[in-house]
């Protein structure tokens, strides 16, 4: 496959395309950003601390969880929990890394810095479709990054109680958008089976595991299951 030979730095046009690809996701980011800002004020953070956390951490589910334990837990526990919740990014990193081989070294920390679930999903889909590049990835990262800290700050300054986003189905923005992205990876029966197994494992996992462990566990087990399926298929053909 020679992934590294396809590694592209990309142009400003690619950057813009990556940025535009995140636009459908922005309403979802803003709704949760506002909610985060309001919640941060409730646990006693100032608007500037609220903003600073989003600027330098930029990880929604970890930030919400940290706020939930802000008063009761110590710094060490909060940092370790953040680490655990974000471990799923190891899998995302492994998945994009081969596309970055052969690029100047400085791209790697730059792209890792703001890689979110959303910008990963958009960028890996672009790579799959052959239109991906480092500039596209950066554009997708920047798109989400423009919305998350700003909406958190606005939420903190408003400070009012917001209606539950789930009432208006706004928490479905990410799963619905990700469905459209997922289809790019369903190439055959094996990838379809892997997606179904991952979904089932994640549902079971989310009931019995805390934080975001279910994403990492389901993603890891189901993707390894894909290799198993290939081996089973090979043995079947040999018979």
């Amino acid at each position, binding site marked *: 496959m020679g992934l590294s030979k396809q590694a592209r730095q990309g142009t400003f046009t690619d950057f813009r395309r990556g940025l535009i690809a995140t636009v459908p996701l922005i309403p979802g980011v803003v709704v949760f950003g506002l909610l985060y800002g309001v919640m941060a004020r409730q646990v006693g953070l100032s608007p500037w601390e609220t903003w600073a956390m989003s600027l330098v951490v930029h990880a929604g589910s970890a930030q919400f969880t940290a706020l939930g334990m802000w008063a009761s837990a110590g710094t060490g526990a909060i940092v370790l929990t953040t680490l655990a919740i974000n471990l799923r990014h190891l899998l995302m990193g492994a998945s994009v890394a081969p596309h970055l081989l052969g690029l100047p070294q400085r791209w790697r920390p730059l792209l890792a810095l703001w890689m979110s679930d959303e910008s990963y999903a958009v960028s890996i889909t672009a790579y799959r479709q052959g239109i991906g590049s480092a500039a596209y990835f950066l554009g997708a990262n920047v798109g989400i990054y423009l919305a998350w800290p700003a909406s958190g700050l606005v939420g903190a300054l408003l400070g009012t109680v917001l209606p539950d986003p789930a009432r208006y189905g706004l928490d479905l923005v990410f799963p619905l958008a990700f469905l459209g992205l997922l289809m790019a990876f369903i190439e055959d029966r094996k990838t379809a089976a*892997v997606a179904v197994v991952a979904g089932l494992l994640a549902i079971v996992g989310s009931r019995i595991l805390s934080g975001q462990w279910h994403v990492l566990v389901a993603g890891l087990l189901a993707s390894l299951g894909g290799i198993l399926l290939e081996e089973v298929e090979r043995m079947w053909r040999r018979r």
Partner: protein
Amino acid sequence: METALRIAGMALATFFTRYAMIAMVGREPSALFRRWLRYVPAALLAALIAPAALTSPGEVSIHARWAAMGVGALLAWRTRQVLPSLAGGLVTFWVLSIL
């Protein structure tokens, strides 16, 4: 001070998880690694989607959520694009939760 320390620690922990694998894959991956990577995006995206679709936070009708995700999945499958599944799913949810 405590707050600044907490935020800095969270930022470092997050950057570590994002950068570790990107920094470590320094050469052309092996054949087995590449075979595995073919399945990672599908597995990760499905794992991010499924729990949100099937669990209902608060007093929202679970059936409206299922219907929204069903319509979204159908449109995603037919169009392979983000906007149709997003718009179709949300409209389905709104219509059903008004009824």
